[in-house]
């Protein structure tokens, strides 16, 4: 499948409460000094790999906070962001316009061709995926030879990120998340 600007390419598997949860704070996600500094630290590590990565997928791109940084690297081709939350993608598109391509989809069913990506970024995403092995196998298939997947975090992070909290919430609240408070 092509990866250009498609919505609803796949939306199966991941529970709807995760999607609804992230829909609820698309406008504010990733804001604040903590997130800014964390992203900067991660990009400091990623920078050497970006130089040779023309095709990048941000899997679980949220409202586009990493894509905004990625688009600052001139040599990149148009990066692709995929997320399960329509509200997050709408915010990402608002920020980035045509600088990136977007796909609405579920990490449990990644809709891309084999050997598509030089770098796949999964920041605070895989902890929501029930079928981890299948997801990583899909990502591996999508990587070009020599390509890299970068995952973060590996487990509940020491600094208490919101996605870790979201997982705590989503795993134990099957049907009806409470209204967001912020």
């Amino acid at each position, binding site marked *: 499948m092509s990866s250009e600007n498609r919505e609803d390419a796949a939306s199966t598997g991941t529970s709807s409460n995760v999607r609804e949860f992230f829909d*609820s*704070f698309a406008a*504010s996600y990733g*804001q*604040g*000094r*903590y*997130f800014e*500094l*964390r992203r*900067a*630290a*991660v990009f*400091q*590590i990623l920078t050497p790999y970006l130089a040779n990565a023309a095709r990048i997928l941000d899997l679980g791109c949220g409202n586009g906070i990493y894509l905004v940084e990625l688009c600052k690297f001139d040599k990149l081709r148009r990066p692709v962001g995929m997320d399960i939350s329509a509200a997050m993608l709408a915010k990402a598109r608002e920020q980035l316009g045509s600088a990136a391509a977007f796909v609405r989809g579920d990490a449990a069913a990644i809709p891309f061709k084999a050997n598509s990506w030089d770098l796949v970024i999964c920041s605070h995403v*895989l*902890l929501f995926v029930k079928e*981890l*092995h299948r*997801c*990583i*196998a899909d*990502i*591996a298939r999508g*990587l*070009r*030879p*020599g*390509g*890299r*997947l*970068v*995952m*973060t*975090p*590996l*487990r*509940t*992070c*020491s*600094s*208490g*990120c*919101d996605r*870790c*909290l*979201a*997982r*705590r*919430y989503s*795993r*134990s*609240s099957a049907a009806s998340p*409470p209204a*967001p*408070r*912020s």
Partner: protein
Amino acid sequence: MLGQEIFAEFGRVAAGTPVVAEPATSDEDYRHACLETGLGIESMTAHFELDRASIENSLRMILARFATPEVVNRTLDSVQAALGSSTHLALTEPLLFGIKAS
């Protein structure tokens, strides 16, 4: 670690609410998944520092999405206690690379 102290308190306060379950996926799960699919693995850690006011503000914003004002305030009280007299916090973000052979 600071986060553990914060969320130990958070967990106690949140007992009986939906915000209780721990993530089931471990570091080893990610590593095994990569290795089983033929990806090589490499670990790295991003480091950053945050001033006290920023971490309190960020946590307040994050927690407000999940918790009642009472829980937020109690959690922030525990943050204050954990911080002590520290003005800056050294934080880390662990990264795992899965690398496809060339």
